[in-house]
């Protein structure tokens, strides 16, 4: 079983986590076109590569961002939204 590092609780087994989908910045809903909005809510890039993802540590209720390469399944860093600590790499 994979291990994932919660920024609040440390490295825990994957069974404690819930995947929350890719993290994507929504366009400004007041200024974007209908087509831009529809693309945001409906279209996902399935191409493998480096992704920012939402993950939820279920026992503690912590949502955080994991940067993961979906091709190699390698997580390079995890952090609370908006609090990326570039000095540290998560996990290994």
């Amino acid at each position: 079983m994979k291990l994932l590092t919660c920024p609040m609780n440390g490295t825990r087994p994957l069974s404690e986590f819930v995947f929350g989908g890719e993290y994507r910045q929504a366009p400004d809903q007041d200024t974007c076109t209908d087509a831009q909005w529809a693309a945001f809510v409906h279209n996902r890039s399935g191409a493998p590569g480096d992704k920012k993802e939402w993950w939820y540590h279920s026992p503690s209720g912590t949502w955080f961002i994991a940067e993961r390469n979906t091709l190699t399944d390698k997580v390079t860093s995890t952090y609370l939204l908006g609090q990326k600590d570039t000095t540290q790499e998560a996990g290994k």
Partner: protein
Amino acid sequence: MIFRTPKQVGEWVNRTKKINFTFEGEEFSAFEGDTISSALWAAGQKVLGRSFKYHRARGVLSLANHDVNVLVTDGIDTNIRADVVEVKQGMVLTAVNTSGGVKKDKNSYIDSISPLLPVGFYYKAFHTPRRLFPFWESVIRKAAGLGIVNFDYPRILKRKTHSHCDVLVVGAGPTGLTAACTAAEAGLEVTIVDENRQLGGSLGYNRAGDSSVVTELDSLMSKVASLPNIKVMTGAYAAGYYPDHLIPIVSEAGINKVRAKSVIVASGAFEQPPVFRYNDLPGVMLGSAAQRLLYRYAVKPFNNGIVVTANDYGYRVALDLFQAGTKIVALVDMRPTGSTAYAAALAKRGVKVYTGHCVYEAIASSDKSGVRGAIICAYDEKQSIALTDTKFTLECDGIAMSAGWAPAGALLYQAGTGMQFDYGVEQFVPSRLPNGMFAAGKVNGIFELEQRLRDGVRAANDVIRHLGGQAPQNDVEKHVGISPSHAYPMVPHPKGKNFVDFDEDIQIKDFVNAAKEGFDNIELMKRFTTVGMGPSQGKHSNMNAIRILARIRGLPVEKIGTTTSRPFFHPTPIGHLGGRGFHSHRLTSLHDWHQANGAVFTDIGAWKRAAYYPAAGQSKEDAIQTEALAVRKTAGIIDGSSFGKIEIHGPDAALFLERFFTGVYTDQKVGSCRYVMLLDETGVVVDDGIASRLADDLFYLSIGTSNAAAVYREMQRSQQMWQLNIGLVNVTGAFGAINIAGPAAREILSTLTDLDLSYESFPMSSVRESHVAGVETRMIRVAFVADNGYELHAPMGQIPHLWNALIEAGKKHALRPFGSDTQRLLRLEMGHAMPGVDTDGLTNPFEIGADWAIKMDKPYFIGQRSLTILAKRPLRKQLVPFVLAENYKGEMPMDCNLVVDGRDILGRVTSISYSKYLDRCIGFAYVTPARKEVGSVFQIRADSGALVAATVVKSPFIKTLKGA
């Protein structure tokens, strides 16, 4: 014990303890420490089992946990591997795959009709005519499989244990032991695992007649024992590789899940047989099997033996046999040049060596229970054919065979290691190892003992550096000189029976036929021929299969590749995997009461809920209608403790709700309740519920049972993004809830509280905090199941007291408990559509007529932007309440039946039920907007295909149909 030798240095048997057991009804004796096979072999019993397909007699092949033709049963366990399982006093054993005993197996006739059963026979022969298939299936099922499952098998729970280490070393041969010691001396926590009972691997038996190597093993073992940070697990195998170095170690005691920071795979290699006619007879065994028999169990493999070899290893085996007193009739070397390293040693002992020769076929003894000789031919190594005009016969009672090795690389493959074929060793070796994985020794293509010891040190140093320590980088040079494996140790024979796979009785010609049929890819060939699909999973057959396929296709071996390696590495008893069910479910504090009162339970989300309470002999339908009638006529009470309950605290609480839900909450009065509806960003309805404002800065949210955890999770995510000044508390488990509803509800409740329950001071959609039966309670007036309803929320522990008080007070009003199934009917009568039941993953609020719940003029709420787009579009479907004809007695449509117009699908039924109170079939269905008006008639296609007319009516049904 006629084949027992004098004491061998380092033997595993304890000669002071004699053991008696029976095999196939015959009595045998053994020493403590013998395996079943070694004890039988020592006694001269050579037929130990029968092969799977042709029921051929089989004996010792590997003595390394791969002798799958020698599976025995003690009546309890089905497939005991006799080659490695220790014999115990009083065991009563029989071979599993025989009809009438291992010696006179009645099914051995199959061997003689084997030409009629070519590979793929089953796939082709039995599928037409179809009506005969059930007959053939029963015949095949009887023939297939090994052993008889014991249905009285005792239920033995094996605990799963967990452990952690810095480095896990898989394999305790010389390489693994050296690696473990080096890592431990550097201060790492080391776990070393080996499937054998004792440490040492090949160092214990690969002696070339010189037992001084045992000293080396002894010193390694005492070093291991002296290092307290080495944990040794013997009699246990690393069963698979899972991400981030999680490796289940399986032993008789159960599974230990080891989480390692790094892994050294020093698992060695499986010896591979050369392929010649009758290479499966009892008495024909792998060279390493002969060595194991001899040095572990002090059993002489045979008296007059031939060693056939295609590498130098066979010479070492011959020296070992010679030292034990076996007469070596000849050493037959398939290579034209023979061995420069060992030829002299054999010559000195007077052993005749035939280089450039092969065993063309082994000759069976008259009763086919063993070997009486071998036909030897010159061998053309270039063309891989026996030159039969040179053939001559040698007499012998056994053949030891060595041809090469296949890496025990299952864990490496599973971890995603890139492997490449190394022609220097004629073997796949790791070329690109995943992070934290290391390989050493034979599995790494290193064969010379001295090199292996250095490779163990090298791997340990790599690990130390990987974990951040300091260690030298000391690369070990690649194998030089003669390859330990032969490129193509096959001897074709026109009559076949030259076995490649002993599990499944597959011969060379089967591969040729499979390729002719077009199955010439290794994965396809595996499935068509079943090579490698037996219990040993190809450990002694896959490599030869790859070589044969490469030859058939005229491709280099690396272009053929290997089949996929998956966990588990070795068959693991189901009992090890099974365990207690951890399907956690939540019980309300009233669970015992429900049980005592005959409730039938249903699973909703994680909760067990009372669905209805049937009286003795009462049907489900009757029980539900009776309970529903009580709510309509007098009063009913339901345990709603499983409802999701969330508190939103803080100055921004109302703002949070306005962003999260579709409604407006900033102007909501303290003491009032409002409907909440949750959408996702695409505008699809997710859930709904009630928000009660208990204070300016406190909302109490109650939502449906099944979605509560997910809704709370989304609230947390939204808060993580929005960073409002609020706190979220999930009080689902802290608070219980009771809903009392019906015309008499208010009167019953009034006897238990001082609160003024008049409709003026406690109107619909309001919340009060008061005491009920002495319990501090949040009372919410809702109309979910009936117009007169009160939800009473109180601490979970006090719910039973409150419930009992209400039941007591309700006695004279015929108050009745009702369950969640009844609640479904009641809310339908009330005309409430339920998210998740009457909506699906595409339903927007306009389609269920919930426009009123949406306040588009807010700055933001989840789904708002999508709704502005949806609002511009014409509706495609609409949820409508409908009734069937009065006194309708035909086939009852079901949830999900389609609404049709001729061949067109207009929609579907989402809820439908008969209501006894209304004496009508009522429901919700999606229809096209053209038919949404009251009075429109549409057709529902019932399960049988019958069309049932339904009419759109106004909701709520109880008002429309009863005027209530």
